[in-house]
């Protein structure tokens, strides 16, 4: 108050920031370094798949193609051979779609019913079953593979599409159920009670109230299941026949059945094609994907 002039001296406003502080160089440097590590394989896949074989033999795997060719992609998609079938990955792609759609729908439907029953209609023993289910997520699949072959055979489902759908539903159930149970637990009981007072029953409340409210969690569940089912290899190879082999299995077949020279460019194109669906889902869903895996973090 007293001496204005004295006070106006010295620093004023924001602390000056230099762009290249040690801290910034460290932070961004480290991040960039890791970004390179994560992006490099993607880059290598893309450039390799666009080169011709001679160029691959001569050149550097990291360098961009001198002459861009889409032939490897065409070959990977529709011409690569396994045995005398030379229809490329396309069959596996459609198989994966065929497996994906019913598996996703059935597993989410059943898991949402489970979650609903577990959160709002607890009965004696329901928590025990749920505990077993969640612990089941940690059991190595290997221990259950063979008995399931027997069960499917007895049910007449072995090798069929629905057999695989069943397997995906079963192994997706722990995490999916957990997801829905937690979500439905968050929906106020009052709403549920009000509906019961209004005379709605188990299914009525589920269909008319719970399902419409659970759209966000269904999206999260779908992202989880679509990437999970698409990326599955083990169940596809054990529980289906070559007719129904999903894309991952076919990818492995194509890459491993060498006729003459290994065509790395075709292999990389095939690899990229197989990874494309989950990648697209990932980049479209963005934050929801993160939410999904955060929610599924207890999965295992």
């Amino acid at each position, binding site marked *: 108050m007293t001496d204005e002039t004295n006070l106006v001296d010295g620093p004023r406003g924001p602390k000056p920031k230099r762009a290249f502080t040690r801290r910034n160089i460290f932070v961004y440097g480290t991040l960039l370094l890791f970004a390179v590590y994560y992006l490099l*394989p993607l880059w290598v896949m893309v450039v390799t798949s666009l080169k011709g074989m001679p160029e691959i033999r001569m050149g550097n795997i990291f360098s961009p193609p001198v002459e861009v060719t889409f032939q490897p992609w065409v070959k990977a998609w529709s011409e690569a051979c396994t045995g005398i079938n030379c229809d490329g990955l396309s069959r596996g792609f459609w198989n994966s779609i065929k497996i994906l759609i019913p598996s996703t729908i059935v597993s989410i439907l059943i898991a949402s019913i489970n979650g*609903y029953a577990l959160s709002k209609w607890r009965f004696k023993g329901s928590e025990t079953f749920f505990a077993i289910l969640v612990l089941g997520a940690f059991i190595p699949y*290997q221990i*259950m593979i063979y008995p399931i072959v027997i069960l499917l055979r007895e049910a007449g489902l072995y090798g069929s599409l629905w057999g695989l759908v069943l397997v995906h539903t079963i192994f997706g159930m722990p995490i999916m159920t957990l997801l829905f149970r937690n979500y439905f637990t968050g929906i106020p009981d009052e709403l549920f009670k009000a509906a019961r007072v209004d005379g709605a029953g188990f299914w009525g409340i589920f269909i008319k109230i719970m399902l419409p409210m659970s759209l966000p969690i269904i999206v999260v569940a779908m992202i989880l299941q679509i990437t999970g089912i698409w990326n599955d*290899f083990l169940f596809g190879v054990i529980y289906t026949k070559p007719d129904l082999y999903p894309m991952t299995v076919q990818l492995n077949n194509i890459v491993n059945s060498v006729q003459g020279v290994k065509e790395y460019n075709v292999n990389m194109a095939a690899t990229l094609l197989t990874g494309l669906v989950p990648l697209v889902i990932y980049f479209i869903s963005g934050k929801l994907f993160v939410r999904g895996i955060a929610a599924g973090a207890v999965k295992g």
Partner: protein
Amino acid sequence: MKNLNAKIASIPMIFTALVIFVGCTAWTIYHSFTNSRLLPNNNWVGFDQYERLWDTKRWIVSVGNLAIYGVCSLVISVIIGFVLAALLDRKIRFEGVFRSIFLFPFALSFIVTGLVWQWILNPEFGVQKVLQSLGWENVTFDPLYNPDLVIYGILIAGIWQGSGLIMCVMLAGLRGIDGDIWKATRVDGIKTWKTYIFVIIPMMKPVFVTALVLIASGIIKVYDLVLAQTSGGPGIASEVPAKYVYDKMFNAQNLGQGFAASTMMLVSVAIVLIPWAYLQFGGKKND
């Protein structure tokens, strides 16, 4: 009857829990004590399969590999995951872009991951060749063809695929920390790295435990990655238990042996899981 509909609706869940998770596991454990070959039988042979299992070099190598892969991937994933999360948490520009980059491999399957890294580590075309053509003529970098290093070659790929998830978990943990804590340390004049080590990391114990369980339960299932990247080779240098189980059950047509191996896998999961369950559920009383 009360809740009849709920019970009917829960039949799939009850079936899965009891028949699949409990029933199938018990069935396999029981048959691991038989000499089942191509088809399961009931000829009880006690611990013969287990004796043979632990007398088999390939199984020992598999378990050893799993141990190396497991410990390294636990340590490295947690370190990378935490460092990246901490850096992303420093109010940086392009956070979303970086996050997307670090996480995208998680959307890819192990088969795809294995094939890409097989290609990059291919000594004829990959990193080794690039290094050599850059003038380091004598450099050898062919982890996938060196029995002593192959498991680390797989590790590079495994970490590439999975560490983004750990970063996400860690980031969620960091974001969950009360901002006032950070302010308090600034007022106290604590350096950033000291704050992480003495304050933040101790506070994130549950997050670390979750991350560890996540990684651990994923590690034991490693199969696709090895299959795609090395098929267990060179020799048996990169074999893993899950592959042993599969090969013995289906290729060698020795179910009993496969069952014994898978039972051992279950035991090792239990060894990881029980302390976690104890920490997670037993630890709550102290909070």
